[in-house]
């Protein structure tokens, strides 16, 4: 392929391409037949009722486990059966629906470990000149996600809201290109959600974002494209305004009082 063709193709080829992706857990078919393209810089929300398969889809994209059917392509590379650690260097990061933090380490050290993970310096048993920069970077990142005042606190002592902020901070470590957020607003108070929405809107355009979120205010404000899942399948795709007006979405989701469910 010639030089010009490559750069021309870049704007069209999606950074994430799922084809016929499915995942079974024994008898449960958690995800099935999912085709999805996400382009660079896109902000996409994935909606759907409990058990729709959203988190499972994230796990397949992040490499927590491989799909049982179909293929996953990231940045033009087929990564279907590659572990998470082969995807991180491509710039793929994620948060977890239930916070997964290092409770015995300080906030700054949680972020530092995240940065080292992205940098690939895992087995270095000595400190060197770069570490000073990484530690500084970690503290700066903590500031950026609103944790500047608790950088030296142990994570176990943080409030729920602060732990959710740290989740996002850890996913922002090391210049991610694709960031996947699994219900970042879960359990947040109203004021905290407003702050979260602002933070998500402020993400650099070089970062592509996929967002699972039950809170419609957050999801439909941040996202430009919405994918609605139900029973492991994609049932509706559209813009936030199309989604607001969609009858099926109302029946499946809004109608069931999820919005007030918190």
């Amino acid at each position: 392929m010639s030089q010009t063709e490559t750069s021309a193709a870049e704007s069209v080829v999606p950074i994430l391409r799922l084809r016929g992706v499915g995942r079974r857990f024994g008898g449960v078919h958690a995800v099935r037949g999912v085709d999805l393209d996400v382009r660079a810089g896109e902000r996409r929300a994935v909606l759907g009722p409990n058990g729709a398969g959203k988190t499972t889809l994230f796990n397949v994209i992040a490499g927590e486990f491989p799909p049982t059917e179909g293929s996953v392509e990231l940045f033009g590379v087929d990564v279907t059966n590659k572990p998470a650690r082969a995807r991180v260097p491509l710039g793929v990061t994620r948060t977890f629906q239930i916070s997964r933090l290092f409770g015995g380490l300080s906030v700054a050290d949680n972020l530092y470990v995240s940065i080292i993970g992205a940098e690939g310096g895992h087995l270095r048993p000595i400190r060197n000149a770069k570490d000073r920069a990484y530690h500084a970077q970690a503290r700066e990142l903590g500031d950026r996600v609103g944790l500047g005042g608790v950088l030296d606190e142990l994570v176990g002592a943080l409030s729920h809201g602060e732990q959710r902020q740290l989740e996002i901070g850890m996913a922002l470590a090391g210049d991610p290109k694709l960031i996947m957020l699994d219900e970042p607003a879960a359990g947040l108070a109203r004021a905290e959600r407003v702050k979260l929405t602002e933070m998500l809107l402020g993400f650099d355009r070089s970062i592509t974002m996929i967002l699972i979120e039950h809170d419609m205010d957050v999801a439909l404000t941040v996202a430009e494209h919405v994918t609605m899942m139900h029973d492991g399948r994609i049932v509706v795709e559209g813009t936030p305004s199309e989604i607001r007006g969609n009858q099926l979405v109302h029946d499946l989701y809004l109608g069931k009082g999820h919005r007030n469910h918190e």
Partner: protein
Amino acid sequence: MIPARLQWPVGFGVVLVAALLPFVCSSYTTSQILTRSLILGLAAASLIFLASLGGWVSLAQLGLYGVAGFTVGNLAKADGGAKVFAMDIWVASLLALVVTVLVGLLIGVIASRSEGIYFLMITLAFGVIIRLLFEKATDLSGFGGINQIIQPSLLGSAQLDPERIYWLCLAICVLVYLGVRYFARTPFGLAFQGIRDNTPRMRALGYNVTLMRTVAFGIGAFIAALAGVLNVWWNTQISPGTIDIGPVIFLLMIAIIGGLYRIEGAWVGALIYVVLDNRLRSIDVVGERVATALGIIFLLIVLLSPGGVMGIYESLSSRWRRTGVTGGATSDGDGTATPTVAGD
């Protein structure tokens, strides 16, 4: 806890006092209490290293200590074991460290895939296998052990100069202690703690968890190997009984008495164990029932504080600090009160 700025002076003071002890203690105490505590403490430190940073309780550490000891015994000049090599003691000891680390890495490859109770069982199995191996292979372990293992000449005579090996052990323990403290703040060390706290997150962050655990287990094996080599230098003999299931449990007890979460606890636990073991035997009612008496004391300490003696010390010092500042409790930090920590 000791405030950060006092840590170095306090640590230096402790080491200085420890270094001067042979001048005031009898030869017997220096050798049988102090040196023995340092060596057992070092072995326990290899266990606490994995437990405090990696959340792993390994029962293979004494087996690895034995591998080091038997390797020295076989390679150096000694009575029993493979006599063909008769190497210089330094060369034999260096090779023993290498061999033990390799064995540790091998165990690590298998054990690093498991956690919790499974890890405990796998490492116990390796501990037992190592012991059986040496017991059955009398070519390697002699009949009833390897005796009169030659000592490095710089240590003089074990009987006449007990303080020399004591100082050597002290120096190595200090180095290991500082090394572990340093390691905990390196990228590898912090990442190892990350694995302890949340393995799935570490995988999502791109870490090769299995590889890191394997290497960390190798580091633990190295610490155990140092203890194993020092043990045969000090004791000049080793037998399969040294690494029997009983001593394995006692080493675990030492680590738990000291506190599995702090590396200092290794030597605190070892000193308590050695002193008790030594004193209890001379009490009539205890006599041969030392193990039972130790077990009861162990139970009391664990019931009193799951964090062992270091845990008791920590909760006492934090209680003392809390009552010390009750008047100005709100003055610390950013105003977010933390009443939850007062519970324990």
